[in-house]
């Protein structure tokens, strides 16, 4: 990539609109090709019951321990993931192998990590913590490395010659990036809280366990209560999730982990998993020097590639493209609600409550409601993914909107929005969307109920059929796709010179003196 390149002949803003137009055009093309059939339905009885349940939330039914377990899994999973991510961040920029490893770690949905880890560690706290820690290590390594990469090198240059690498890092680089790292890590903890919900899917006793049961079985009063408690937990995170409370939270989390019932022979399970389960079926115990073995392997692999990997990648990319552009539109609509300048002193807190609600509602619930309303097609998946992600991006954008220094005679209302705020935030906005791109790819995995045959849909099938060898091939394909998307997103961000990383999540990092 040579500098700003063709996309940005007249500075970054021309590149912004070119990229935006390309993304929108691709989304339109995907939309035309996608199955968006709307069926005629009678969802009202079910929706009325759902709404009634949420209005008459059944708070006494909420299992208090599930809240504790939710926090415990999030703190330990994200803590270990962030620690490992920090270690991986240092070689990240130089080592293709580390980048590949991190992409593979984060391209697999927490749910599939949990199911794979269960093969070895059983239904235990270890499985739950690792299911969060592994993908989070991959995500944190990437973002930490970019934070470190973009740090100011001025301090490094004035070090005396002969300074050791560790000292140089600790004294010249860390002080500059520590704040960003801290903010990003605290933000990931919120994501971790949301991610613990899917641990409930395999039976770990987080709030997700009870929420999924209650929702699935139509006990909407209980589901409503759990969801409201969860909103409060997320909404108040800045009160209880602080650098000072972290040590206490970490120790308390360890003590509060649920006990494991029964035990598994970890060594034997690991050996079986590595030496049998994930070895492609035709190669198990076969003579590897025999060309016939490889012919069988080819015959085994071909249908996986043509029937699952190929169409799966296409469906996943189509869904992600449409969902990404819908997320973009949604967040442009939503962000003024959490900006004090647009929503006002009273409107802003209300907007925040709305966006916490939107982004903390699990996608599978949104998908279920959309499925009831619209029937099975790609449409409920698009809605579920874009509503959820628009809540996240809109929230982050709203915070930035208030950090911008405005002239005292700045315009108001729509003029301010269209001619000042949005243009000034646009680079940041694109950066966030390019980051959400791969997250949307991953999240599309758990919407198999809708019959949209994404890669995740096929992974789900392979795991259900206990064909872990096939699952591993599909996961590798997902990782390759994620890496390709990630490389493209990285190249685009470089071309557009979007320097600001989505790390300014809680508050402005440095006063913009003289900006």
């Amino acid at each position, binding site marked *: 990539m040579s500098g700003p390149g063709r996309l940005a002949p007249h500075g970054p803003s021309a590149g912004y609109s070119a990229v935006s137009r390309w993304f929108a055009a691709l989304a339109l093309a995907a939309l035309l090709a996608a199955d968006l*059939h709307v*069926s*005629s*339905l*009678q*969802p009202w*009885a*079910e929706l009325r019951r759902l709404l009634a349940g949420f209005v008459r939330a059944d708070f006494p039914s909420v299992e208090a321990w599930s809240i504790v377990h939710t926090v415990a899994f999030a703190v*330990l999973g994200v*803590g*270990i993931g962030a*620690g490992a991510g920090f270690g991986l961040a240092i070689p990240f920029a130089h080592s293709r192998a580390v980048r590949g490893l991190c992409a593979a770690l984060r391209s697999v949905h927490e749910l599939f990590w949990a*199911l794979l880890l*269960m*093969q*070895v560690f059983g*239904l*235990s706290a270890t499985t739950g913590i690792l299911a969060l820690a592994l993908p989070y290590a991959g995500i944190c390594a990437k973002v930490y490395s970019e934070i470190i990469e973009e740090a100011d090198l001025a301090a490094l240059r004035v070090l005396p010659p002969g300074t050791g690498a560790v000292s140089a890092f600790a004294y010249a680089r*860390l*002080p*500059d*990036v*520590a*704040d960003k790292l*801290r903010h990003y890590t605290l933000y990931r903890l919120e994501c971790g809280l949301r991610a613990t919900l899917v641990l*409930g*899917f*395999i*039976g770990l006793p987080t709030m997700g*366990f009870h929420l999924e*049961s209650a929702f*699935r*079985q*139509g006990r909407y009063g209980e589901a409503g209560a759990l969801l409201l408690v969860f909103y409060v937990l997320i909404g108040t995170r800045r009160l209880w999730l602080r*650098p000072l409370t*972290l040590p206490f939270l*970490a*120790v308390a989390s*360890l*003590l509060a*982990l649920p006990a*494991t*019932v*029964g*035990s*598994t*022979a970890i060594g*034997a*399970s690991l050996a079986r998993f590595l030496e049998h389960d994930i070895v492609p079926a035709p190669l198990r115990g076969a003579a590897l020097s025999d060309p016939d073995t490889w012919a069988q392997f080819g015959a085994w692999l071909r249908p996986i590639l043509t029937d699952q990997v190929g169409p799966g990648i296409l469906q996943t990319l189509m869904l992600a493209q449409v969902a990404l552009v819908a997320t973009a539109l949604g967040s442009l609509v939503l962000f003024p609600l959490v900006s004090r300048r647009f929503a006002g002193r009273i409107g802003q807190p209300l907007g925040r409550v709305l966006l916490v609600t939107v982004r903390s509602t699990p996608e599978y619930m949104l998908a279920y409601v959309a*499925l*009831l309303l619209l*029937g*099975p*097609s790609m449409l409920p998946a698009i809605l579920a993914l874009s509503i959820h992600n628009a809540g996240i991006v809109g929230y982050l954008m709203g915070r930035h909107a208030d950090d911008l220094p405005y002239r005292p005679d700045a315009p108001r209302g729509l003029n301010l929005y269209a001619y000042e705020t949005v243009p000034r935030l646009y680079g940041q906005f694109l950066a966030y969307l390019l980051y959400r791109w791969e997250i949307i790819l991953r999240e599309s995995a758990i919407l198999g109920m809708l*019959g949209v045959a994404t890669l995740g849909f096929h992974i*789900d099938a392979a795991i*259900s*059929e*206990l*064909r872990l060898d096939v699952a591993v091939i599909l996961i590798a394909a997902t990782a390759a796709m994620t890496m390709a998307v990630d490389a493209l997103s990285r190249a685009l961000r470089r071309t557009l010179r979007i320097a600001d990383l989505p790390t300014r999540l809680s508050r402005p990092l440095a006063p913009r003196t003289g900006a």
Partner: protein
Amino acid sequence: MIGVTTRPSRTGLLAAVLALAQTVLGVAAGRAEDRPPFVFTGIPDQDESRLVERFGRVATYLEAKLGVPVRYIPVKNYPAAVTAFTNGQVQLAWFGGFTGVQARKAVPGAHAIAQGAEDASFKTYLIANARSGLTPSKDFPQAVAGKTFTFGARASTSGRLMPEHFIRQAFPGKTPEQVFSRVGFSGDHSRTIQLVVSGAFEVGAVDYTVWDLDTKAGKLDPSVVKVIWESPPYPDYQWTVRGDVEATYGAGFTERLRAALVGIEDPAILEPFGRSKFVPVTDAAYDPLIAVAKSTGLLD
């Protein structure tokens, strides 16, 4: 400066946390070895409140009969149930026909020991939303072609394997994806019913016992949703036990367990299962399912 002081202390904390984790896990493992509880699970095929009710009572009953501590662990999806069995975390499981086949294939020495009296000839109902215009018939309703269709869980016998088999029989050479305009996997039988009631899917395949329990409870409006076809009978649910229980709990444990299960007479235990009693069974009873699973490509 802040960064310099907090970063090392946090890394130290992490190390401490890991050390503590090892101790906690180690202690837990040590405790477990003193007297290993006999652990079982069941596939989450329906409403979980029913599951906790039914398996909680079984645990109490078995503990009294077998003289060892018995624990039930709930799992939330079918592959998780099979995995817990495969890696030895649970010794006994209430499996569906197909998950049982999967589990016994993965664990040499595991055997089916008992099934419900009703499980020798289990059935699938095809249910349809009234607006689909489909009417009940004795033969497989060919008119379902082109409708939207939902299975239950992917590894369910009555919600997936057998209906897929009957669909492939009725439409030779076609997969369900080619027969229907859309195929979904609802995840369990209760949700299949909800989705067909709302019309989100026009047709669904459901376990007949779940349907009958819901009908008896008056939850279903026959003007909205009805059974349009009843499948031929096939073997389904069973209790499967690992072969290594004899080594852990003493010779003859499998037989005592079988006798205990078959001896359940308390309607309070049987009723939540929708079974009248349990009867002895052998692996061979499920051979037809293996053939079907192979022909539908769900098993190698």
